[in-house]
């Protein structure tokens, strides 16, 4: 008998006295020591399945039919007592976002100790086991970390702590819900490697829930593809990738650049032999220093950027890639004049902007506009689409009511949204639609340059694909230039002409994407490329 046997499972959420189905007729098994991945977009029911398994559905979630057997115990419609006995000791959970998965007011050690004590361990054995679990999860200096608070740890370390908590219950099954989506690629690779090793060593079954088919294909023994609450495809990774039964699976493969090109990161544009057009934005020798006032280590200087030189040619896309904390967002803020550089010069469309006052900067703001990472936070929830899109025009006193209305319709048309959306509020739009509105707003002032800060990383793969296509199309039609910040090399390969790879506040490599990605000269770039998931597909 398998460790997990789900059959005919229906789960729904109660909304306005009706049950909206989230999972329909799901059959799924996870064997002893097996690694299974559920792949799907947001709303596919993958997370609901995981929550139902561990009995942690939100209060409006209902299991309406079917059965879930975990280690021989029925958990569908089981009472809290039965579920509590399973949680931690039979099923462990590694939650989605390590940045918010730990209690901010409790020390790391205490949070792991809770899980250890639930096993009936007491006394001096508790701290010893806490340190053991931390070390097992690959946390360096466990004694120090146990005494720290979550916010003092990086995202990668916090995810390792969450793994330690899951391990501390000695479970037979670990559910990992998007365990690394919030992390950098190299950290993601290291953590997934480590987790994979641990479960194999200890014979734990692993259920990975992910939106990323490449991650699933790299890590799992068996891949299950879900869409709109139903299982649409299932099989071992090689079969899924080479002979997908469903059109939907094929779409997912096509949207994962590395899978589509047999494990290669293939640049979409090759500008190796073309002369670069004259630049719209040039950063030369830019440096930025912060003073850090650490209560324990005293005051010290910290160089966020050192001697960064970046050029964005007209009509092209220059990408800044690197891991979190490498300085790419600071570079972007300096390019936009939101932050001033400590040293160096910034020239936007022929004008030196470093040292300009807020007032002096204002006319230049029309030339460069920003699109944010999070489409859910970038729009004012109380503004209709019309208000959001026309706000820049109102702010610069351009046109009257009627011409602004016409412009708003134009702009929506440019980002392929129907004019009927003008009266909608952000809450009525999907993530992809919101990002389209954000792009329309950025285009309102007819800028020459768009600064795009991770514009697709919060979106589902298929939606990512659509937004990238829209951006490429806009660039061609309007002659726009982009400075594109991303941590995702596969996205960069798709949209950018040239790239700067950043690490610890410095540019380590620069050049056409086609050259840098196929023949990286720095070891850091090579490490980044190796960490992009989807390599197993090549084999």
């Amino acid at each position, binding site marked *: 008998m398998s460790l997990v046997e789900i059959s005919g499972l229906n789960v729904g959420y109660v909304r306005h006295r009706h049950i909206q189905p989230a999972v329909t007729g799901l059959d799924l098994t996870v064997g002893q020591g097996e690694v299974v991945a559920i792949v799907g977009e947001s709303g596919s029911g993958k997370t609901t399945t995981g929550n139902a398994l561990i009995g942690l559905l939100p209060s409006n979630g209902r299991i309406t039919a079917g059965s879930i057997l975990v280690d021989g115990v029925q958990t569908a419609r089981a009472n809290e007592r039965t579920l509590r006995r399973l949680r931690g000791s039979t099923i462990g959970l590694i939650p989605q976002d390590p940045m918010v998965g730990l209690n901010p007011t409790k020390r790391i050690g205490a949070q792991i100790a*809770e899980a250890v004590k639930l096993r009936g361990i007491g006394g001096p054995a508790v701290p010893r086991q806490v340190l053991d679990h931390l070390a097992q999860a690959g946390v360096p200096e466990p004694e120090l970390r146990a005494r720290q608070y979550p916010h003092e740890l990086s995202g990668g370390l916090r995810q390792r702590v969450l793994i330690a908590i899951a391990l501390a219950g000695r479970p037979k099954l670990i559910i990992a819900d998007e365990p690394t989506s919030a992390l950098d690629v190299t950290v993601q690779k290291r953590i997934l490697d480590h987790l994979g090793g641990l479960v194999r060593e200890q014979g734990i079954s692993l259920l990975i829930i992910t939106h990323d088919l490449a991650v699933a294909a790299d890590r799992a023994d068996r891949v299950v593809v879900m869409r709109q609450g139903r299982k649409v495809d299932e099989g071992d990774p090689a079969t899924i990738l080479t002979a997908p039964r469903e059109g939907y699976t094929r779409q997912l493969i096509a949207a994962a650049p590395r899978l589509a090109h047999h494990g290669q990161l293939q640049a979409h544009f090759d500008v190796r032999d073309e002369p670069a057009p004259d630049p719209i934005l040039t950063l030369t020798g830019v440096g930025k220093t912060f003073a850090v006032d650490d209560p324990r280590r005293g005051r010290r200087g910290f160089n966020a950027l050192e001697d960064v030189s970046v050029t964005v040619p007209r009509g092209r896309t220059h990408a800044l890639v690197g891991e979190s904390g490498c300085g790419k967002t600071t570079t972007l803020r300096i390019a936009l004049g939101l932050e001033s550089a400590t040293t160096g010069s910034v020239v936007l469309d022929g004008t030196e902007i470093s040292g300009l006052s807020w007032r002096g900067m204002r006319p230049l703001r029309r030339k460069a506009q920003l699109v944010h990472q999070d489409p859910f936070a970038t729009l004012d929830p109380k503004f209709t689409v019309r208000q959001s899109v026309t706000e820049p025009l109102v702010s610069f006193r351009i046109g009257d009511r009627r011409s602004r209305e016409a412009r708003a319709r134009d702009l929506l048309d440019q980002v392929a949204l129907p004019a009927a959306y003008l009266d909608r509020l952000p809450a009525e739009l999907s993530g992809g639609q919101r990002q389209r509105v954000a792009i329309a707003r950025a285009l309102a002032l007819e800028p020459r340059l768009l600064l795009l800060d991770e514009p697709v990383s919060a979106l589902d793969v298929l939606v990512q694909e659509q937004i990238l296509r829209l951006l490429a199309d806009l660039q061609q039609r309007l002659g726009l230039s982009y400075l594109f910040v991303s941590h995702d090399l596969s996205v960069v390969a798709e949209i950018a002409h040239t790239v700067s790879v950043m690490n610890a506040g410095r540019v380590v490599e620069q050049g056409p994407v086609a050259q840098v990605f196929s023949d990286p000269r720095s070891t850091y770039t090579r490490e980044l490329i190796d960490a992009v998931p989807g390599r197993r597909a090549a084999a």
Partner: protein
Amino acid sequence: MIRYLVGRVVQAAAVLWAAFTLTFAILYLLPSNPMQLQLAAAGIQEDSLTPEQYAAMKHRFGLDESIAAQYWHHLTGVLHGDFGDSLTQQVPVTDLIGARIGPTLLLSVCAAVVSLVAGSALAYLATFVRRNPVRIVLTRLPALGASFPQFFIALFLIQFLSFQLGWLPATGTQGAQSLIMPVLTISVVTSSVLAQVLIKSFDQTLSQPYVVTARAKGLSRTAVHLKHAFRNAALPAMTILGVIVGLTVTSSIVVETVFTREGVGKLAQEAVLAQDVPVVLAVVTLAATVFVTVNLIVDLLYPLLDPRISHTPEVVPV
């Protein structure tokens, strides 16, 4: 950290000074004749005085100085703990307040403690209970409590507990029994305000991913609620604590008047009616001091309760 402390203390002092100055300005703009009040209190007929005598009296009371000089006089006096003499009763204001502060302090402290306990308990229950009707009633209760005027609650309590049941004395300052109804009157409102903030905060905290992590460990709901949710939920509510303690002090004016308790609140009410400017000035300054002190304490406690403030290095551009 030292800079943070000094900054907070300086800020508190500035607020106090501003409160004093504003009160002084308002009181001296009032259409009143302090000489008349002084003379009436001393039992002297204004008509019986010669202009020379009148001027001499005016000089004695310090009322012949310019307003700026009077302000300076008062301010330096206050810094030395001297609020001058009451206009209507010929005693130092500090003595008057000293005699009345005991019952008010007792009332405020009791009301603050009861509000804290009752508000937290209500919020805890309202978010812990899973049965829907009970939950709805509990979460709506604070809105009801916060919207009753205090004099209404006081009159209701007197009518019910004193006149009908005869359990408690309707008025007076004597004994613990006389404290019960005034404390109840104040805490119905303040505990409701606290509960409202806490319930909202609890709801937000309980939807945080780390609560899921805690439950996935196998912890019981009680343990999750107490060990994980409570402290995090209490943090945003801390800021309202200063307001609540302040409310218990200012509420004493209404409550002491209704229950005829001999406290500072009643003194303030009497002083306002009699236009006894030095007393009013002193009471307002005292209330401001309590407000500022409590808020200062909250500000200083906050970093101790939230490690994200005390354990985070400060980053500033050079």
